[in-house]
C-alpha cells in the first residue's frame, strides 16, 4: 500500500512536490533556528566561561573564597601533574592553568627610572606552548590592535588604553612590580609585543596578558596556578556532565579539612553564571517554542489546504465506490509520507546549514565596530540532540493534524457545498 501511494505521489508531482517543499523549508528553518538560537544564547555564557569561569574550574578552597583579590599565596601547587591527570581522566575536556595577578606596571625613562606607572590586573595564560587554544579562547588574536602575540619568553600584551597612558609601544620594556606567591616583592621585566582591546573600560584601563610560564617565573609560582579551567571540547557547556565530573573529581582529589586541596566547581555553581545558564536556557526554550508554534501553524495550514483542495478528487473516488474510511486512510498515509520525507529532507538540509554555522560561525565584525576580548565577533550555531527532532514537530505532526482536520470533511454529508466553495 505504501509503495502504491509513494508511486502515486511521485508520479503526480502536483500532489506531492509543493507540500514536500513547504515541509522541507519549514523544517529546515526550524532546525536552523533552533541551532542558531542555542548557539547565540549559549554564546554569552560561553564568552564568560572562556574569559573567567571555565566550564569547570579547579581552585583551592582558600583561593576561591577570596578569588576576587587573586590571592596567589593560596594558589594550587603541583598543577602540571594535576592538569595531566585531569586531561587523562576526562579526555572530553581540555584543561588549562591560569594565573590572575595584580600589581604595578612601570615604564622606565632612558635612565631606567620610573617615568609612568599604573595599577594593573594581569592574566597568565598559555601562549608559548604552541597550542593556541587559550589565546583563541580569550579571543586575543582578533582583539590585537598593534604588534603581535607573544612569541618569545618575557613578552607581554597590554591593553591599548593602558599602553597609551604609559606611553609604551610594542618593543618597549615594562616592569611588573607585584608580590610573589610567598609574599616577596616580585619585579620582572617584560617586552611589550602588542596591544589588545578588551571591550570593557575596567580592563582596558590596566590589563596585561603574559604567558603563564613567564608569570610563574615573575611571581615565583613554579608549578603553581591560581586556577585550572576545564572546557568541553564540544565548545558548549553541559551542566549535567559538568556536575558529574565535579563530583567525581572532588571525591578523588579534595580533602574537606584541607583548605589547600583542589576543589572543582562547575559553571552552574557560580551564582551569577548559574543564573545566566538557567535563565538563558529558559528564554531559549520559550523562543524556540514560539517559533515551532508559528511554524506548526503554517504547516498545519499547508496540510489543511492541501487536503481541502483535493475534495473533488475525494468526491470522485467516493463516487466510484471507495469507502470513506479507505479514502481517509490513504490520504492520511500520503500526508504522513510527505511529512516524513519532507521533514527528513528538511532536517538534512537544516543540519548542513547548522553544521556550517557551528563550525565556521558568522563573523559579525563588519557590523560591530571592533572585536575585543570581551566581545568576540564570531557567532556560532550549536547543534544539540534536540536540534535533530524539533523539526519533526511542525513537519510531521502538525501537517498531519492539518490533513486529518481537512479529511474529516470526507465523512461529512454536506461536503459538496464546501468543496464547491473551495473550488472557486
Amino acid at each position, binding site marked *: 500500500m505504501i509503495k502504491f501511494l509513494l508511486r502515486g505521489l511521485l508520479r503526480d508531482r502536483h500532489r506531492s512536490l509543493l507540500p514536500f517543499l513547504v515541509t522541507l523549508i519549514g523544517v529546515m528553518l526550524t532546525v536552523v533556528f533552533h541551532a542558531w538560537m542555542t548557539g547565540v544564547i549559549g554564546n554569552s555564557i560561553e564568552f564568560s566561561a572562556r574569559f573567567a569561569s571555565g566550564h569547570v574550574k579547579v581552585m583551592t578552597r582558600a583561593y576561591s573564597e577570596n578569588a576576587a583579590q587573586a590571592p596567589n599565596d593560596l594558589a594550587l601547587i603541583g598543577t602540571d601533574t594535576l592538569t595531566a591527570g585531569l586531561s587523562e581522566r576526562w579526555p572530553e575536556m581540555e584543561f588549562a592553568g591560569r594565573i590572575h595577578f595584580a600589581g604595578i606596571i612601570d615604564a622606565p625613562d632612558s635612565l631606567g627610572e620610573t617615568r609612568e606607572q599604573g595599577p594593573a590586573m594581569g592574566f597568565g595564560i598559555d601562549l608559548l606552548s604552541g597550542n593556541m587554544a587559550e589565546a583563541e579562547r580569550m579571543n586575543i588574536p582578533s582583539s590585537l590592535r598593534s604588534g603581535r602575540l607573544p612569541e618569545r619568553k618575557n613578552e607581554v600584551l597590554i591593553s591599548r588604553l593602558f599602553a597609551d597612558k604609559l606611553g609604551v609601544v610594542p618593543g618597549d620594556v615594562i616592569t611588573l612590580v607585584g608580590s610573589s606567591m610567598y609574599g616577596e616583592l616580585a619585579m620582572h621585566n617584560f617586552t611589550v609585543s602588542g596591544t589588545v582591546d578588551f571591550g570593557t573600560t575596567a580592563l582596558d584601563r590596566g590589563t596585561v596578558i603574559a604567558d603563564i610560564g613567564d608569570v610563574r617565573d615573575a611571581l615565583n609560582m613554579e608549578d603553581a596556578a591560581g586556577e585550572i579551567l576545564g572546557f568541553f571540547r564540544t565548545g558548549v557547556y553541559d551542566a549535567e556532565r559538568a556536575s558529574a565530573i565535579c563530583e567525581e573529581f572532588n571525591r578523588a582529589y579534595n580533602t574537606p579539612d584541607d583548605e589547600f586541596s583542589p576543589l572543582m566547581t562547575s559553571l552552574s555553581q557560580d551564582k551569577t553564571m548559574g543564573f545566566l545558564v538557567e535563565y538563558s536556557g529558559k528564554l531559549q526554550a520559550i523562543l524556540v517554542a514560539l517559533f515551532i508554534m508559528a511554524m506548526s501553524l*503554517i504547516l498545519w495550514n499547508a496540510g489543511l489546504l492541501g487536503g481541502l483542495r483535493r475534495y473533488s478528487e475525494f468526491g470522485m473516488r467516493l463516487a466510484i465506490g471507495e469507502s470513506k474510511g479507505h479514502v481517509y486512510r490513504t490520504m492520511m498515509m500520503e500526508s504522513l509520507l510527505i511529512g516524513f520525507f519532507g521533514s527528513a529532507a528538511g532536517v538534512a538540509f537544516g543540519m548542513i546549514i547548522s553544521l556550517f554555522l557551528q563550525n565556521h560561525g558568522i563573523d559579525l565584525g563588519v557590523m560591530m565596530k571592533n572585536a575585543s576580548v570581551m*566581545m568576540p565577533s564570531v557567532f556560532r550555531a550549536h547543534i544539540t540532540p534536540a536540534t535533530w527532532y524539533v523539526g519533526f514537530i511542525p513537519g510531521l505532526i502538525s501537517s498531519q493534524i492539518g490533513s486529518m482536520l481537512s479529511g474529516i470533511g470526507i465523512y461529512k454529508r454536506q461536503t459538496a457545498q464546501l468543496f464547491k466553495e473551495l473550488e472557486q
Partner: protein
Amino acid sequence: MLAFRLALRNLLGAGLRTWLNVIVLSFSFIIIIWTKGLLEGWDRQARNDMISWEVGGGQYWHSEYDPYDPFTLTDSHGQVPAGLEAGVTDGSLVPLLITQGSVYPRGMMHAVLIKGIPPQQKVIELPTAYLEAGEGDVCAIIGEAMAESTGLKEGDYVTVRWRDRNGTFDATEVKIAAVFKTTVPTVDVGQIWLPLDKLQEMMLMPGEATLLIRGPEAGPPPVADPWVFRDQDFLLSDIETIIKAKGSVGLIIWGILLMMAMLAVFDTQVLSIFRRQKEIGTYVALGMTKSQVVGLFTLEGAMNSVLAAIVGALYGIPLLLVQAVKGIKIPLSSSDFGIAMAERLYPVYSLWLIGGTVAIVLLVTTAVSYWPSRRIAKMSPTEALRGRVQ
C-alpha cells in the same frame, strides 16, 4: 483601482481559505515581533538594571574621581557644588561618598569600597531604608555576591576598618541590616554601603561627596564646575557596545523569522495560482493583459499580509502590550537565584521593529506572491480556461 477592488473581493470571497491564511500570517507577524522583542528586552535588561541600580539619570563626579583607579579615592571628595545643593535637599540628587577600607569577617581581611548613601534616597533601587534601623548600631547593607564572598549574613556584626582624611586608622562594628539581590555587580562585589552622614562623620568629611546620582527624569543637567556631569551614554557605553553586538546577532534571527513568513505566503500563493487557472484564463479572455493578471495576483498576495497586519494588530497589540508592561515570568527551577526582577523579562518593541517588520513582510510577501504569479504570463489562455495543468 479596479485591480485593487477586484483583489479585495477575490480575497474576501475566498472566505475560510483567506482567513486561514491571514490568521497564519498574522501569527507569523506576532511571533517575529515577539521573539525579537524578547531578545531585545533581554539585551536591554542589563542596561535598565544598571540605570535603576547605579547610573540613574546620569552622575556628577568630583573632578578627581576615577572609578577605575581606587587610589584616586583619597583625593576625590569635596563639598557638593553650590548649584547642586538644592537637588540634594529635595532628593533629586543622591550624594555618594566612596572610600577604601577593609572588613574583617571571621578573622579574614577583605579589601572593600565603603560607600555612603542617604538612607531616605529614592533615586536608585538599593534598599537604603535598611540603613536607618539604628538602635545604636551602625547599619550596613551588602549585596548577595559580597555576602557570599565574605560569608556575612543579615544580622551579622562585622568590623570595618578605614583611614580618615588624616590617614588615621579607625574601626567600628557594623550590623548587616540587609543583604540585597541585584544583577548589577558594580553595586555589589567588594563593597559595603553605610549611611552617608555616618561615613562623612567617620571620614571627617562633613557635607562631602564623591559623586551625585541624578533622578532619571530630571531635565537638562545644570553645570556644576568643577564637578563633571557624566550622562547615561557615558556611563553605559560599555553595555551599549555589547547590546549593539548582540543586535547584529538578532538580525540573523529576524532573517530566519522573515523566511518563515515568506513560506506562509508562498505556500498559499502557489496553491491559489495552481487552483485558479480557469479564473486566470477567464481574466485573459475578458481582455486583461497578462501583466494585469500578474498584478492582480501579486496584489492579492500583498493584501494577504495587509489583512494579516490588521488582524495581527487586533489581537497582537493587546497581547504584546500586556507582555511589555507585565513582563514574562521566566520559570526558574531554583528560587535560590532569587533575583526578583530578573525573573521577569520585559520585551522591548521599538517602533523600528514593528514598522520594519510589517514593511519588510509586506515587501517580501509581495515579492513572493509575484514570483509564482509569473507563471501566469507563460500560460496559454485557452489551456488555462480549460483548467489544464501546465
